[in-house]
Structure formats: C-alpha cells, structure tokens
C-alpha cells in the first residue's frame, strides 16, 4: 500500500511543478517562433538580467511572505529606497562599497522590521500595513534624494562593474539571482525556518499550538522581503549608475504576479522556489517578446494581459491550481 500511495503523491507534485513549467516552455516555443532573435545568447542573457534586476530577486522574499498568508506591497518602494541609499551612502557620505551595501541591506531589513512588526505583533492586516510602508518608503527615498537621481560617479565604480559585469560569461546580477533562489530553496525546504513559514500559512493555529512563536517568523519573512528589495535596489543603482527614487514603481504587482503564476496560493502554505523563478521568467519573457516582435506600445499591455490569462489557463488545465 505504501509504495502505491507514494507514487500518487509524487505524481501530484509533478503535475504541480509541470503547471508553471508548461507555461514557461510553451511561452519559449511561442517566443522562438515569433521572433528569430529570441533564442540568441545575447537576448537570453538580456531576459535573465532584466528579471534579475526587476521582479526576480524580490519574488523570493514575496514568496516567503505569501507562504505565511501575508502580502508585501512595499517591495517596489523599498527597492527605490535601496537604490537612493546606495547613491547617498557611497556618493554623498563617501562610504566604501562594502559598508554601503551592508548599510543599505540594514535599511531594507529595517523597513521589513517595521511593517513586519506591526503585522506580526499588533496583527494589522498585511495589505494595509505594507501599503502604508509603500508610501513611507517612497516618500523617504524622494526626500533623501531630493527627487533627483544621485549619480554614483567614481565612488560607485565598484558598483557599476557589478551591475553590468560578467562572471563565467553570465551577468553578475543573474548569478546573484540564481544564488538567492538556491538559498531560498534550501531555506524553504531544508530548514526549520522554511518549514515553519510554510506551516504558518497552512494552519497558523496548529503552529502556535505546537509551541512555536509564530510572530517571530512572520516578522522574519517581512525582513527577508525588505532585504531582498534592498538588494534589487542596489542592483538597479549599479546597473544604471544612479540612485533613483523612481525605480520600482508598480513593481509590487509584477512581483506578486510572478509568485502567483508560479502556482503559489495567496491563501498561504502553497508555493515553491523553482516555480517562482519560472513565474518571474514568464513575466520577463512576456515583456521581452513584445519588444522583439515589435508589438506597438499601446497594444503591449493588451497582449500581456491576454498572455497571462492563457498562461494561467494552461496551469489550470494541468489541474495544479487551487483557488
């Protein structure tokens, strides 16, 4: 009986994985047919770099938050704050690259600490609390930068190399993204922390009754999300050479969409790292192929919406999706 049951379980999870993978593969095939440039090495690296510096890295943090049944709308703004602070610390305060990075990450963590604290300990709804943090972080980045981009200049040479540099022929931000996903996957699947985070979204009361201090974990996921948003901000400023309060506008919706296209449930407890990566890539490919295929600007959004629907139907038809 046991082996029989075993295969049944694995079959389901394969189907589940298959959902997002199917979307991904179909999209790749469609993109290849639509534009001969799509599968070129340069373009693939393009897509990867674009994903790495937009929704990709933040999607891991968002996945953790969503697994606990929460939501973090502040990621785009915290990314902007991270970008501005990178410029500020390195070009204006004159700190070195390492100090700057550590301080920016700390600020990202602080944003997560504030929203996570209210959500975990005072039980404010995550939607509104993170919406408030979204406004606050954006406001702060505007105030700090006085609304102007802060050029990194020479002080930021180290950064620029990172943002547009390559290692083993792969753009460095892409490597970083993969690293974040691998670490995220390991943490989620092979550590107490990851399992408890998943369990909280699945049945918070059960976790509490198991004698686990739930609020700490909830606090932690928002801090992770904040830190990863700050990382995205650092990457952005190293790619563009400026710290800007304008980055990441509306990013939260894309990041959440990546996670949900990756099969995670907003009702918590369900979702994985690989699928989230695929989800982020799907979002990236959709944007990329429109430009390659020369879809005119105004039509892009219509196509994009339609492709998302088709993608979700694909996932749905493989039976992996539960609302």
């Amino acid at each position, binding site marked *: 009986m*046991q082996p029989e049951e075993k295969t049944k379980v694995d079959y389901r999870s394969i189907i589940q994985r298959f959902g997002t993978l199917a979307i991904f593969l179909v999209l790749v095939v469609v993109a290849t047919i639509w534009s001969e440039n799509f599968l070129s090495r340069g373009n693939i690296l393009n897509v990867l770099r674009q994903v790495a510096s937009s929704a990709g890295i933040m999607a891991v943090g968002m996945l953790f938050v969503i697994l606990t049944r929460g939501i973090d709308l502040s990621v785009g703004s915290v990314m902007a704050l991270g970008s501005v602070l990178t410029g500020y610390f390195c070009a204006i305060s004159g700190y070195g690259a390492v100090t700057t990075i550590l301080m920016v990450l700390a600020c990202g963590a602080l944003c997560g600490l504030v929203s996570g604290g209210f959500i975990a300990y005072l039980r404010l709804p995550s939607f509104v609390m993170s919406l408030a943090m979204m406004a606050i972080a954006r406001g702060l980045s505007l105030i700090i930068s006085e609304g102007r981009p802060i050029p990194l200049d020479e002080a930021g040479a180290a950064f620029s190399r990172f943002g547009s540099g390559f290692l083993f022929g792969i753009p460095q931000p892409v490597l970083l993204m993969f690293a974040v996903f691998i670490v995220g996957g390991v943490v989620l699947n092979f550590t107490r922390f990851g399992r408890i985070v998943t*369990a909280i979204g699945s049945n918070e009361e059960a976790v509490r009754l198991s*004698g686990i201090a739930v609020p700490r974990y909830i606090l932690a996921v928002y801090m992770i999300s904040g830190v990863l948003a700050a990382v995205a901000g650092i990457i952005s400023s190293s790619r563009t050479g400026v710290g800007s309060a304008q980055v990441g506008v509306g990013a939260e919706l894309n990041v959440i969409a990546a996670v949900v296209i990756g099969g995670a449930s907003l009702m918590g407890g369900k979702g994985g790292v690989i699928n989230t990566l695929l989800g982020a890539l799907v979002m990236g490919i959709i944007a990329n192929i429109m430009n390659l295929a020369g879809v005119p600007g105004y039509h892009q959004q219509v196509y994009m919406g339609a492709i998302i629907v088709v993608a979700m139907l694909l996932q749905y038809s493989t039976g992996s999706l539960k609302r």
Partner: protein
Amino acid sequence: MTELVKLKSISKSFGGIHALKSVGFDVRPGEVHALLGENGAGKSTLMRVLGGEMVPSHGEVVIDGKPVVFRDPRDARALGIVIIHQELALAPDLTVAENIFLGELPGVISHASLRKRAKDLIDRLGFKIDPGRIAGTLAVAHQQVVEIAKALSRDIKIIVFDEPTAVLAAQDAMKLHEIIRGLRDRGVGIVYISHRLEEVFDIADRMTVMKDGQTVGTVATSDVKIDDIIRMMVGRPISAMFPERGKRVIGQEMLKVEHLNAGRMVRDVSFSVRSGEIVGLGGLIGSGRTEVARVIFGADPLESGTITLKGKMLKPRSPKDAVEAGIGLVPEDRKQQGVILDKPIRVNSTMAKMSSVVNAFGFLKRTQERADVTALGKSLRLKASSVDAPVSSLSGGNQQKVVLAKWFHADGDVIILDEPTRGVDVGAKSEIYALVNKLAEDGKAVLVISSEHQELFGLCDRVLAMGRGRIRGELTPETYSEENLLGLSMTGGALTANQGGQA
C-alpha cells in the same frame, strides 16, 4: 498519592458567557481520567487552560505540587503537558513527518531521517501511513493518527485526548486504546474526553462529569453504570437511545442508483431507498461511503451509472440540481462543509431553500424567516440563545442540529446523513436519532452513513456494507452484528456464509 495536575477553582468567561465556573480537576500518574459532559459543558475549554492555550479568569494550575502560570502553549509543553485537540491541528500543506515533528524541527532538516523517525513512530502505533505524504490529502482518520503520533513524539507526563475516536472506526479505536494503556502503565497521566460512553467505561479509571461549566462530580469507574453517568450528564435519564422503528410506513421507491462509478472509490454501486425507510451505509473508513453520497448529491462528478429519483432520471451536475430535485446532504465535515460558522443560525437554516424566505424581488422576509426558524428550532429542540446567534456560538451537537434544520426547511424527499452524530453528546444524539426517525415517518427516504455501527443497527431498516468502493452485501435487523458488518465489508465473500448461518 500526589496528583500530577491539580486544577483549582478555574473560571473562564468569554465576553458574557461563563464557560467555566470554579472547576476543580485532577489527574494522577498512571491513570486514565475521563472527562465527560454534554456539548458545550466546558471540557475542551478546561483542557485549553491546562495546555496553556488560554489564561483562566480565576483559579490556579498546580503541577507536581507547584503552582504555575502558563503564558502560552510552550510553557505547558516544557512541563510535559500535551493536548491532542478535538479540532484537527495539522498544517495540511506539510508532510506527515513534518507535522509530527513540527514543534521540534532541527535547524537544518534531513527529510530522510525525519521520515524514518516518523515511520517508526507510526508503525509503533500500528498504522501504515506514508510519512512523506502531504497531510491534507489523508483521510480524517489518518490525520487523527498523525495528531496522536505528533503528541507521542515528545516526552510526556500528561496527555489529553479530546475526542480522539470521533473519527476512528472501531478497530482503530481499539488500537488507540492499546496505546493509551501502554502510556498509563508507564505512569503517564491521561485525560480522556469522549462521547462514546461504552469505550469510556472500557478504558477509564475515574470519571469526572461536567455540566454547564461546573463539575457535577468525580467517580471511580467501578462504582457506576452507564445510566448513572448519563443522568449526571443530561440531568435526566434517557428512556431509550433509539426511537421505535415500528411507526414508519415504508412506501414506494424514492431513490434508486444503478451501477454508479466515480473515481477509485465508487465502483458499480447499486441500491435503492424507499419512502419511510432508513437505510444504513456501513463499512471501514475509506471504503467510499462518503464518495457515494457526494456523487448522488452532485458534489462530485459521476462517471457512469444512473440515479433515479421518484421514477425520474437525475443527472446532477452540481448540488444545485440535486437540491432542486429534492435531495439533501448532511456532510461528514460539519465545520468545512455543513455550516457557515460566523453566520447566524437563521441564515444557515434557510440556505438550502431561500425561495421560501424572499419575496418576488429577491428581498428577504426577515420577520417571517425569524418566525419560521424559531419554530423549526423549537421542534428540533435546538439549544441556542436566539436564531440570530452565530453558529460558532453553539455546541457541536447543536451545530449539527442546525445542519439538520437546513434540510428540514428544504423539505426534500431524500435525505443523506454522513456521520450525523460525530462529536455529539449522548443527549443530543438520541434527539438527533429521533429527528432522523421523524424524517422517515414523514415519508422521506433516509440514507445514513456512520462509522458507529451501533448507531446503524439502532436506527436503520437495513444496512449496506461497503468495501473498496463496492457494495458488498446487505444486513437486515436479524443479521445485525459487528462481525457480520466487518466481515462483509472486508471480504464480500463472507456474505453468503453469514446470511446462511442466520437465516
């Protein structure tokens, strides 16, 4: 003898409700202390206080002679107090092994060793459950086993079983009792809560009966009989658990199913139920009884076969079709499928037939609705402050009565009841039996699914035995016995032998 635990004049109130009024309770090492009482008497609440899940308004918890104050479940756990909850407390998206060790996961997890430890534990309990399986996909009974394994994974000094057998079949309950006796012999203090009084008499050393948030008394099992306990619980003796079967007139065929197939759990199922008849569906857990009910009700898709209702073919694509045709289903999972907990009794009761409480424009006729439901509640002897109270404020038995009220109100011809008395106290049970009987007396066809075989035998005109998705035989009152039913459902072959023997 020193008590492991002494609860001294514990009081607890929720808003205006006094759930516990100065309750005293104690557990000694190496004893099974049963905690009994009607639904809502305060048993679970008292245990929540013991488990550190609730802070009492007044009173003292004394462990090993020392007063303690629990701030949260962790404090209680540290002292070796473990509670197996009445409401399953598993994380449905995690594996069985992860659930079992949730409170003590290592920082870095080796799934292989975790699963091995889980498997050992489950094996020792005498069950076969794949520890790598996602907990939410297990049948309820197996989820309950996982809960027990989770509790036993730790060092325990005191363990509370809050209605552990409500979802278990007879043999599984026996297995559990073996485990409990083993614990007792090791000197663990055990609190056992159940509404199945026979098994309580089987296993308990002492019993404490609660009523309306107070203790009625504590007695040694050897000093009392079941009837005494029932009197202590209900406040009056129950004349007969089951209603008389005689008064019902069995009429024409109402529901007939032929060669139903759906998934793995419904294979070639055929049977019929007549007006005024109560037919039981028995068998082991996981034999597919629930699935049969759901297919007839349109809740799950039908692959092949025919359903005939009063001579007319029915192909329900959704419960809506079934309800319109006059079928009602009291589902096995009350909280998830039966009631809308945060909505008033009134809203729940009229859900299946709202047309009778709205006017031509879809506006609710609230006054009439309130009057109707109040009358209905009275006839069902529903214990509630008012029909406007949310269902969540009711005891388990009364919640079940609300589900019954819904189908009484809908007034269909065929009623299917899946585990209608799960977690319901004796008093309410006998009332529910009377209600089910009344349905049949009113000329309805009734199909009852239950894992409590005595319930089927006491209530039904005949009992169908299911096993592995098939109907494997039929028992009549003359052949009613546990062995016959189990024999039939496990191996269809036993049918002829048994029937032959009895006839």
